[in-house]
């Protein structure tokens, strides 16, 4: 509408619909991927943020009616709508971020919050780094399948290194509440935990005392958060959607769109553990251990039961999600 692009071929138009503001790390990942796709593949990218479940259908239809070729709905709460709308518009491609879609047809893709492999690596590193044999997780709600996979991954990774490790999970019971996350992290630290997986934002500031002394180390999640607190964050469990997005778009452009389930596995670059270089340099042994582990995960020599009984007695379910179904490969 506004830009004066060369009229050669009409650009492939991709829309993303987010339930929360763009600042949400979960959204940042897709946003970054689509910005990259815009620059590299020349697509047109438009997004809507803070879209409620009741609004999503209307907005999808508006995008479709104004000629968008691909709609990415990026929230669990959107999946039923996507599953219902997709078969009605066979010429439009749809991608849904997590859910239980079944109407894949030729045009619907489903992708998951699939970074448990990197979380496993993080868990293993955490187990190597802890001095107290106590590690913690600060997360949102219990019983969310997507999230549980990560937690399971992290716990399994930690137990891989030290089966007797104590892992405590603190639920802040909110998708976004940094002050609560910070308080939960303080509580973990006060109980002797010295490495924390920050599944939700808001814990890094808790990891130092008032004099600036580091009380606990932390892991970032979803995006690279290493710079947010360089002396605290060992590394981040990073979700990278660009390889998947590129594959989807290129598939669509070549009439070869692969519908069905996508997993952003480590081997395709969809998920990775990104070390904070300072820690990488200070802990060469742990670093090299993690690289080996990573290779084993990619090779498939390491896999784990998704239902892990945690030290504090909490069973993290979500076991019905298969762990290694690499039907998505970097083309």
């Amino acid at each position: 509408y506004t830009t004066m692009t060369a009229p050669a071929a009409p650009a492939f138009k991709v829309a993303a619909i987010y339930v929360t503001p763009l600042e949400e790390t979960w959204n940042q990942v897709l946003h970054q991927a689509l910005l990259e796709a815009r620059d590299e593949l020349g697509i047109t990218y438009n997004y809507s943020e803070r879209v409620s479940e009741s609004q999503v259908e209307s907005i999808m239809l508006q995008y479709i009616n104004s000629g968008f070729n691909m709609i990415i709905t990026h929230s669990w709460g959107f999946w039923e709508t996507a599953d219902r709308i997709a078969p009605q518009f066979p010429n439009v491609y749809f991608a849904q971020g997590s859910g239980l879609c079944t109407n894949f047809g030729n045009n619907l893709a489903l992708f998951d919050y699939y970074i448990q492999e990197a979380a496993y690596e993080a868990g293993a590193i955490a187990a190597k780094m802890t001095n107290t044999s106590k590690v913690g997780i600060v997360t949102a709600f219990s019983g969310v399948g997507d999230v549980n996979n990560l937690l399971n991954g992290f716990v399994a990774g930690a137990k891989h290194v030290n089966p007797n490790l104590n892992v405590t999970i603190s639920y802040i019971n909110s998708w976004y509440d940094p002050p609560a996350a910070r308080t939960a992290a303080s509580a973990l630290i006060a109980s002797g935990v010295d490495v924390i997986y920050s599944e939700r934002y808001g814990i890094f500031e808790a990891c130092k005392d008032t004099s600036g002394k580091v009380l606990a180390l932390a892991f970032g999640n979803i995006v690279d958060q290493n710079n947010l607190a360089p002396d605290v964050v060992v590394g981040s469990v990073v979700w990278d959607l660009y390889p998947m997005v590129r594959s989807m778009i290129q598939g669509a452009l070549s009439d070869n769109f692969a519908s069905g389930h996508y997993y952003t596995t480590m081997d395709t670059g969809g998920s990775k553990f990104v070390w904070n270089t300072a820690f990488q340099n200070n802990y060469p042994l742990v670093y090299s251990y993690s690289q080996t582990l990573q290779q084993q995960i990619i090779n498939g020599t390491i896999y784990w039961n998704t239902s892990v009984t945690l030290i504090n007695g909490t069973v993290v379910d979500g076991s019905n999600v298969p762990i290694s179904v690499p039907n998505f490969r970097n083309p």
Partner: protein
Amino acid sequence: MELKLTKSTVRSIYKAVISIALALVVTSVLFIATGANPILAYYYIFVGAFGNLNLTVETLVRTTPILLVSLGLAIAFKCKVWNIGAEGQLYMGAMAGTITAVSLGNSPLTLPASILVAILGGMAWAAVPALMKTKLGINEVITTFLMNYVAIYFVQWLLSFPFRSPDTLFPESAQVPQAAVLPILLPTTRLHLGVVLAIAVALPLVYFLMIKTTFGYKLRAVGENPEAARFGGINVSRTIFLALVLSGALAGIAGLFEVSGIQFRMRGSLSPGYGYTGIVVALLGQNNPIGVFLSSIFLAAIFNGSSTMSRVLNQPQGVVDFIQGVLVIFVLGSEYIMRYLEKKGVFKA
């Protein structure tokens, strides 16, 4: 009703047009700052709200919960009971209704029963602050507001544990049975029965209640001067209690209609703040049912229209909130603007 072009009608029309125009001028500043064409922006706001049948229906669909909530709030506010808790009442109504619908399954009673229980749920949640106010004299602003959070965490808990759907991977209820779904009245749109019930049943009923009945009279008397109302023999506590509980009932229906007409399951994120939007709408409509109706359509239309505009013109979504805020202020201040213009001689009084 015959439309007579009396002086005061003409004045109100001028008033509305001028205040909205001025609001648009103010928002233009934002567009011009980013190089967007304001005229085009307004065009797309209109198109986004009423551009075709589907978009118009969508505006009505969004109007529905806002209208129901704000009609209820108008009753409470008329009686000067500051119910800030419609959000929580909406959640509790919707939750209660959903549990009923899911447990009754496909029976002809499912829909009416779930509506009834949603009403009771909203009422019950409002009854707590109502009792605290009438029996103990505790300020309802704070209790209703705080109870929103209690409701939302409680609903979240119900959805996470006792009433969690067994077959999804998320804390949400099971889908309501087909018999609980509000039928679609216009195929290919989302015009469900709830929209019609809200506009054609709830609105006239509330209008009748507030304007034509002795209860409406009591509401006003208690709201304006509770002391004199008491001296006149009106049961002030009972009136306050009823006003709060009725507003809870309407919020409960609003919640259930969102489940049965739009989302088909109960979620922790059911309402994008309808309970708070309703406050603005009720006061903007001066707690008059007709005014409330017009302002709920107005707000729904601006919301839908400006969010469409922001997509089409690639404007950050913040523009949606900004335009809503500016329009609310200007519509609220329209009388002042008109008086000012009349004083300056731009218009004749």
